[in-house]
């Protein structure tokens, strides 16, 4: 029977299946960060259990870490410090791989995993973090889990799962200039809604997906969770193999050849069954921004703030509440919305390609916002950006050049919005209070965020590209 890519990876990892379909799924890589793991390690200790496969477990602190240069002196906030110290000692006690705060390889767990070659095609990857979907860009089955499941994976290297349904999201044709992976993934959520993917694993495919870089594919898969899907994935191809090859934990020699032989089979078969299919034409996708407090509240930058009455059911009240929280009025042009702050970074858009895209807009320009920061996704991304001269472009434009971490994406660290502060952000969630209590978040691509930084309001990046040309 023809299989989808998800079917193939699933089948290769089933340890045991009950008659009702409840399955024990083997986990190839377990990524761990400081926020969702302390209670899991404590649970192991209480039960006298060990980590079953410490060699497949990779820990890195990212959510709590400050991103200012003075962090080498330690973390000031006592609770954050305790959480990071707990990860330090748990990693040592249980013998898992660990990248401490001041290691150049430290960064956001979903950027570090692929960068170090831990994430490989065909793997099962989990982490106590919803944005684990990022790793699906390699053709891995990757998803977030809760802390009880973190403990379960630590103890057994397996998860109790039921198989999800298969959804295909096809993006036909080529993206127009100024339109990026972020615009694809936000536009898909705009189409399906934040619950549209519930119960599904999404495979993204089509010419526009094939034409994306690996970094772009990570951006697309990263936000599969915002569409409600368990995971998002993309079939591996030559770009994937080229990205993986030579990374510290990628296979080498004969093992590389054996891996490649299997990896090349990792694609959905002709005639495979899809429970749901969604198709978008790349040429119909525009640079988008969010206006509300859910990632589904997304519109092309050329549009206006919608009226709550345009919606139906519970969404009417939710939209009303969102406009009130965001301080916006129906009918207001999106491109008239003034911005206080710009945040470029996160597991969605904190990779080298994202920094290049933003720097291209910022080159020779100055910011017109109160503050702007770039937070590279890892120490290695930061080093590469410095080597490529991108850091200097950001600094010259007036951006703060920070150290790696989750930063203002979720504001568990000192990087936060003040009440009412309005931010153009490249992160993934515009929920109420996400970037700080009362903070107002507009999600967009790095190039769009850079354009907003220059003009001080939400801006169609395509206009600035014409200026450059």
């Amino acid at each position, binding site marked *: 029977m023809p299989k989808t890519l998800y079917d193939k990876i699933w089948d*290769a990892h089933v340890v*045991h299946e009950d008659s*009702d379909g409840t399955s*024990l799924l*083997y986990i190839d890589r377990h990524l761990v960060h400081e*926020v*969702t793991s*302390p*209670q899991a390690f404590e649970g192991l200790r209480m039960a006298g*259990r060990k980590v*079953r496969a410490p060699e*497949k477990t990779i820990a890195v602190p990212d*959510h*709590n870490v400050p991103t200012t240069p003075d962090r080498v002196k330690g973390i000031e906030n006592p*609770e954050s410090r*305790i959480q990071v110290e*707990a990860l330090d000692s748990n990693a040592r006690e249980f013998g898992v791989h660990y990248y401490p705060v001041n290691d150049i390889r430290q960064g956001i767990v979903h950027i570090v995993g692929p960068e170090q070659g831990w994430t*490989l095609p*065909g793997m099962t990857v989990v982490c*106590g*973090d*919803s944005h*684990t979907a990022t790793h699906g860009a390699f053709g891995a089955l990757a*998803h*977030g*889990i*809760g*802390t*009880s*499941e973190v*403990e*379960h994976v630590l*103890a*057994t*290297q*397996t998860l*109790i799962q*039921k198989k999800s349904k298969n959804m295909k999201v096809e993006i036909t044709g080529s993206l127009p200039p100024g339109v990026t992976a972020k615009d694809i993934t936000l536009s898909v959520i705009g189409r399906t809604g*934040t*619950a549209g993917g*519930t119960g599904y694993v999404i495979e993204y495919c089509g010419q526009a997906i094939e034409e994306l870089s690996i970094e772009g594919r990570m951006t697309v898969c990263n936000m599969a*969770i915002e569409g*409600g899907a368990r995971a998002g994935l993309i079939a591996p191809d030559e770009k994937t193999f080229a990205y993986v090859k030579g990374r510290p934990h990628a*296979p080498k020699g004969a*093992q590389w050849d*054996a891996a490649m032989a299997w990896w090349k089979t990792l694609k959905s078969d002709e005639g495979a069954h899809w429970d749901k299919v969604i198709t978008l034409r790349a040429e119909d996708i525009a640079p988008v921004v969010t206006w509300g407090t859910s990632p*589904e509240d997304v519109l092309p930058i050329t549009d206006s703030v919608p009226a709550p009455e345009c919606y139906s059911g*519970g*969404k009417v*009240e*939710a939209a009303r509440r969102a406009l009130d929280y965001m301080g916006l009025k129906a009918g207001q042009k999106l491109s008239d919305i003034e911005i206080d702050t710009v945040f470029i970074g996160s597991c969605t858009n904190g990779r080298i390609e994202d920094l290049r895209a933003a720097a291209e807009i910022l080159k020779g320009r100055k910011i017109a916002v109160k503050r702007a920061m770039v937070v590279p996704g890892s120490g290695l991304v930061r080093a590469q950006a410095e080597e490529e001269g991108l850091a200097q472009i950001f600094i010259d434009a007036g951006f703060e050049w920070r150290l790696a971490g989750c930063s203002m994406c979720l*504001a*568990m660290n000192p990087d936060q919005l003040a*009440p009412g502060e309005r931010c153009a952000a490249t992160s993934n*969630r515009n*929920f*109420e*209070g*996400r970037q700080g*209590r009362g903070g107002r978040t507009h999600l967009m691509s790095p190039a769009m965020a850079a354009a907003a930084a220059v003009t001080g309001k939400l801006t169609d990046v395509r206009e600035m590209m014409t200026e450059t040309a």
Partner: protein
Amino acid sequence: MDRFTALTGVAAPMPLVNIDTDMIIPKQFLKTIQRSGLGKNLFDEMRYDDQGNEIPDFVLNQPAYRKAQILVAGDNFGCGSSREHAPWALADFGIKAIISTSFADIFYNNCFKNGMLPIVLPQEQVDILMEDARKGENARIAIDLQSQTVTSADGHVFSFEIDPFKKHCLLNGLDDIGLTLEKVSAIDTFEAEAAQARPWV
């Protein structure tokens, strides 16, 4: 883990759609290394003002709902992050069951690990239960896991679906890890075979 068998109680109405995990438990409370004590910060930014005073309008601050054990909520409850702090905070407050038309996947799974029952019902049934919830003490809702039913205050009985394994674990308060470790020889065998088939992993 706590068992869940049956419950009759007051339900708090939260009709807002897409109630996300940042609303349920804002990030500043994720810095704990414990599972307990999060109930006081449940829905913190909706429940308290900047000074930490209760916002009287918020449902769980109203006298009728301060001891609610059930939530009736809008679509897609629990969307957002994987933080198990969300069910921990709900459970610590005293919520044992949540009724909605849909739940986000990770939140839904996390509930079962904490002795909580998330119940999916069609819109029209949720609407009836939402009306009951608005009546507070005067309209208690009854949930029975064994028979997979929710009974509204005026006696409508609604059946809900639940995965048999999850039901079994919840009824008996079973610990997943213990169950899985009974299959440790299957894991050993799988690992040995996988090491042959995919030695690079």
